């Protein structure tokens, strides 16, 4: 299934926030986690993750620090801030609302269709 570009873009920030709420992480690991969570369906180009991360950093939702990877390379780690936690909660409410709105209209139509004998 192909998820539309707009939806990918819209879901990027809440997804990253949610992943970071589990633990501090870095770019490649976040990207990998997105793949796992969506069963490989959510197709991002890897590079696009970074502008998203940096925007979240600029808004104060995450903080970043430079550390070293197991192989001794410089690696940038991101962690959720308090503000980020609030943002994540707000995002959750918004997505739930959208979700429930869609569900109710879809199920109503399905029920109608069923009643009409399909």
């Amino acid at each position, binding site marked *: 299934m192909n998820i539309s570009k707009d939806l990918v873009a819209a879901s990027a920030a809440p997804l990253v926030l949610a992943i970071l709420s589990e633990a501090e992480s870095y*770019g*490649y690991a976040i990207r990998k986690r997105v793949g796992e969570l969506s069963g490989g369906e959510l197709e991002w*180009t*890897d590079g*696009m993750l*970074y502008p998203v991360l*940096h925007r979240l950093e600029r808004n104060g939702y995450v903080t970043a620090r430079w550390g070293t990877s197991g192989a001794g390379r410089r690696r*940038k780690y991101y962690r959720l801030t308090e503000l980020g936690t609030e943002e994540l909660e707000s995002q959750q409410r918004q997505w739930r609302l959208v979700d429930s709105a869609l569900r109710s209209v879809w199920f109503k139509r399905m029920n109608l269709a069923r009643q009409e004998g399909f």
Partner: protein
Amino acid sequence: MRKTTDLLEQRITEWRTFLQRRQAIHAADVDELEDHLRDQIGALSEAGLSEDEAFLVAVKRMGDLDSLSQEFAREYSERLWKQLVVSPDSGDSQSGNAKEAIVAIGLAIAAALAIKLPELFGISITGDRADDQFFYLRNFSLFVLPFLAGYFAWRRALDRQSRVWLAVPFVASAVIVNVMPFETGGSTEVLAALHLPIALWLAVGYAYTGGRWRDHNRRMDFIRFSGEWFIYYALIAFGGGVLMGFTIMIFQAIGLDAELLVQTWVLPCGAVGAVLIAAWLVEAKQSVIENMAPVLTRLFTPLFTFVLIVFLLTMFWTGSGINVEREVLIGFDLLLVLVLGLLLYAISARDPQAPPGFFDGLQLVLVVCAILVDGLALWAIAVRISEFGFSPNKVAALGENLVLLVNLGWSAVLYARFLANRSSFGSLERWQTTYLPVYAVWAWIVVALFPILFGFV
């Protein structure tokens, strides 16, 4: 994780340099992206891909660079505006910048104090004694350009011998303009005062080139520097004017007259200090921001060419000659200076290897038009001089005209040859840099010999 081979390292380095060329992506971002790329390559290799394949797939997954740099640019729109290196958080070589700033500002303050030094001896800039005012007029450049020369002597780490050479023109001119028995307010005094800054500016050029003033590339750099400096100075002067205007206005609002204070302190100190600040800014930002002078050149070359052509056609059509007034010759000198400036800064920014283009043709038309207009003016003035004889002003103006005309005339020949593919652009560039000492020689003649020749009147 497997050890990566040299070939892979090389390809990653290439990819890095490719990324780094994007203005919106900073070095730290490239580091981060590289870390990702390496992780990806590692994972793909473990899954059984060859190193080559892993690299290609990893790069592909990273996304194409254009859209990536666009994403970064959207996130960091300010990065597309190149920032001046004087901002505190500009990354590396900060301590060097700080030292540079301290020296430049220190010298600016020193120059500002120097211009007030004569006050201690009762020579006032705003006083009503004409002697005092002409003292400042003659010595103005001597209060500031030695500091500028000193700044470059420090920056370029001039050796002892070059420093001595550098000091010679400053000491010599200080003696000349103050020892000669000028008639106060006479033409030779005014001419010396006007030409001394030019003579000393070229001495600053000696320091700018680090003593290697024979090197034509260095000379061209000095020409570039002068143009940028002029633009910065004009901008600072504009800002300073606004500052002084507001100062006077707000103090007036509380019933205090700040005008005298502004005239005796803010204006002279600011004017000399800004010379050093502008030079420092040009030095600091030369690799960061595109040069302004060539941009203005591109803008104004077509406009001036158009005006000159229309002027020539009108003269031809109406048959009216040039009206010889007192100021006309100076006016035409300035026109030649302007055309020469347009020519110089067009040359300074041009890629010498590029083939002749439309703009080169336009430049030649401009130069030829300027020579024609000037020739007509010279004809009119020569008639007048033969009637009324020579004065220092006329000889100076004529000499300048000649100096500029020779330069532009030969430039036109070289330009025409270049357009006809009979010589390289480099020869035109070289002609301009070769000609630089001529200006210095002429300026020194006016400063040092004119007073003697014309009896200090």
